[in-house]
């Protein structure tokens, strides 16, 4: 029944619990660490500039206090937590922060971040809202602006060759994430959802090469289990924005379910799409980040002319994951105040219905304090589908 934790997963747990300790170490060795939020920041550019991208995380166990001094409580609770930890100097090892146009909360608080935090580098990447020829052209220009800004800050030219090399390393990372997801396919899964999300979260605090090594080790270690020690239970897909902690997934698994697939930022949304290495690097990045990262923030025109056709196009990746990972139920987990996801709840509900996949919609704030309330609802849902 118990999952054995070998060396790799122990490392993962340490990186997860003491988030940022490796970055702090590297900073001590003279490396530059650049923080970022959201799936839209092209990490390849940061890496190619010689710096190490570091995903800023929230902490659901930490009450938001100092952040409230500067930021309204009507901001997305996850993002408030990220800001709160930042103003409390939890990420003091950062040299700078990059924020994309992921949502209004990010846009409207950019000044609050860039004036309120003591880092020397801030950059805002504008992300178009549509996917069409002119928006890709624009986005390429915007990526070049970001590139120049990094070049200026680090005093280093980012060559196309270097960028192409880094793109390949990131693509490798996405393949390794895929390999981790493959371990979910067995029934019961070989790797728990908790372990997987913990691994991805740990990875987002590491230099990409170290993350690649770590993921390899985790895959090997989990494969060595041979067969799953877990008990069979309902296979769940989690859908939503960024879930950078394991508490919700752990709750599902404590109650007998298995999280085997997802459409979340710190999961398939971030890690599945690869960059086309046959295109010039900036063009390729523009395609990947604008088109392939499937976030509700991006408006995708209804080409089908029907509602059913439209949701099949917009959410097709979710259906594909559900099928591939044999999900038996979905949890749509949406943060309060999240406009991009919030407005899609009726359409996503309809989509899950079209898949005949039972779905539980949960609206939550970003706090461990609410897990007790969620427990009852998840339990009922698992019993219903189980």
């Amino acid at each position, binding site marked *: 029944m118990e999952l054995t934790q070998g060396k790799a997963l122990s490392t993962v747990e340490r990186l997860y619990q003491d988030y940022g300790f490796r970055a702090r170490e590297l900073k001590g060795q003279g490396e530059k660490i650049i923080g970022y939020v959201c799936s839209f920041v092209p990490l390849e550019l940061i890496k190619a500039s010689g710096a190490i991208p570091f995903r800023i995380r929230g902490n659901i166990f930490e009450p938001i206090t100092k952040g409230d001094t500067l930021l309204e409580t009507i901001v997305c609770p996850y993002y408030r937590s990220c800001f709160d930890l930042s103003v409390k100097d939890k990420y003091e090892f950062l040299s700078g922060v990059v924020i994309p146009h992921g949502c209004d909360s990010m846009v409207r608080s950019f000044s609050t971040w860039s004036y*309120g935090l003591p880092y020397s580098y801030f950059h805002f990447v504008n992300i178009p809202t549509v996917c069409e020829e002119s928006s890709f*052209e624009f986005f390429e220009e915007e990526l070049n602006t970001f590139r120049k800004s990094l070049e200026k800050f680090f005093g280093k030219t980012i060559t196309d060759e270097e960028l192409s090399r880094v793109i390949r390393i990131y693509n490798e990372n996405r393949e390794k994430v895929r390999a981790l997801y493959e371990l979910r396919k067995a029934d019961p899964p070989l790797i728990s959802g908790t372990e997987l999300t913990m691994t991805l979260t740990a990875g987002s605090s590491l230099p990409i090469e170290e993350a690649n090594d770590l993921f390899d080790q985790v895959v090997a270690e989990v494969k060595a289990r041979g067969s799953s020690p877990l008990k069979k239970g309902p296979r769940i897909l989690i859908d939503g924005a960024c879930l950078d902690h394991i508490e919700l997934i752990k709750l599902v698994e404590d109650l007998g379910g298995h999280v085997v697939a997802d459409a979340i930022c710190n999961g398939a949304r971030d890690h599945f799409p690869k960059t086309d290495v046959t295109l010039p690097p900036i063009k390729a990045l523009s395609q990947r980040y604008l088109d392939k990262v499937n976030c509700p923030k991006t408006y995708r025109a209804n080409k089908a002319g029907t509602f059913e056709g439209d949701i099949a196009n917009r959410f097709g990746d979710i259906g594909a994951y559900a099928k591939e990972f044999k999900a038996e139920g979905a949890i749509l987990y949406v943060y309060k105040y999240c406009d991009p996801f919030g407005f899609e*709840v009726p359409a996503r509900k309809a989509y899950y219905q079209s898949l005949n996949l039972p779905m539980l919609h949960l609206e939550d704030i970003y706090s461990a304090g609410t897990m007790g309330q969620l427990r009852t609802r998840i339990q009922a849902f698992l019993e219903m589908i189980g």
Partner: protein
Amino acid sequence: MAEEQKEAKPKKRMTATKAAASIGPMVKEFITGTLQARAEGKQKLAYTFIVCHHEEIFRAMDVVPIWTENFAGICGAKRDAERFLQRAESLGLSRSLCTYALCGIGFDQWREELGQMPPDAPWGGMVKPDFMISSGQILCDPRSKWYQASQQFMPDVPIYNIDLPYPLFQRDQDHREVLGYYHRYIVKQLRGLVAFLEEQTKKKMDYDRLRELVDLSDRTWNLIEETYDLRKAIPCPMGTGDAMNTMVPINFMMATQKAYDFFVELKKELEEKIARGEGEVENEKYRLMWGGGLPSWFALTDFNYFNSKGASFPVETTYRMVAPLKEMDLPETKDPIEHLAWRWLGYWTFWYDKARKRPGSEPDVERLINRIEEYKIDGVVMHEAFSCRTWHVGLIWQLHQLAKIYKPIPVYVVGKDGKKEKVYRELPSLILESDIIDITSYSEVDTRNKIDAFIETLESIRMNRAA
């Protein structure tokens, strides 16, 4: 499904100007105008949003705009939004989302379910459009999500989404370096809109007419600036309460002669009031700025309450969606679409250079400082509407930064040793908390208690101000 009951009728707000009083019928007229146009079937009608700099294109193509934010605001002002909000909630939409959008989606779903207007729809209701023009901007997420959500209930109505970004202010980056490609992109987006409208209306764009309309709205921009500048007078002849009416021609009627004429009249009226020394309030004691946030449309009488305490609002940052064109230095172009794109960028980057010159400043903060000085402001009032991140995130920080870099009030304080010493203090500020149309978030008692305390604070400072 929803509780189909109207809330208590709101009290009518008193206006200071005749022009502001004439707005109500005007809004009613363009709502009934859309109903009529639908009945006649000669013109195409389109859902759309304000502040997209596309009115000229609409008018030139003879497309009738249905301002969906306006309709939600009307529901709010008539205290009749709750039943539509509840309907949206029952669809699975969270009450924490933009309540304009919730109201609109709830209304659309109801209308489409019935095949006719919901019972007692405010002012006859919002008609089903022929198409919807949404806009993804670096301004408001719900704008590109709202119509998409509504389309679920009217899948035959196509959407065209225009993207209108502008470069966000970054301290160490000169926005001029990126304006070129922003402009190219916006031009393409606007041309895409023209092509979409041509396809929908089966008409060709008349570029001469478009040029005339762009010229008309440019002249209107300048006229609005001149008119609003008159509010610098002491006593102030027109306050923010009235400006929440006169925002109608600015935001819903741009590129029409009627909007231009409206401001000719308003300007004349203000000049006359100034000549007579007539203020918004009889005995002006405090001059306040509405420094951020959309108003609670159901509680505009709060402005009268401020007025009753001797407080006038000579200036606001909200809905003053114009800036002096002559100070923008826009590149010359004969192409009206190119001009619209430059004007868009000029408007959003208007305070960037000034902000860069003052240490610690930022465009929104800079605008506050400039208006405080130009309009001789004693205090700043903001409103935090819980459902809208677009206009209501960043306000706390702006006040924080303003207090940090701008301390205009000299006061004597009693030091620890009992001696008086002169120090400089920031402007006092008040943040009201409620919503644009969700009346359940509003408490009149709490709001007025806060206003009372704020007025007393202003009085304290007035008495205490070092000579």
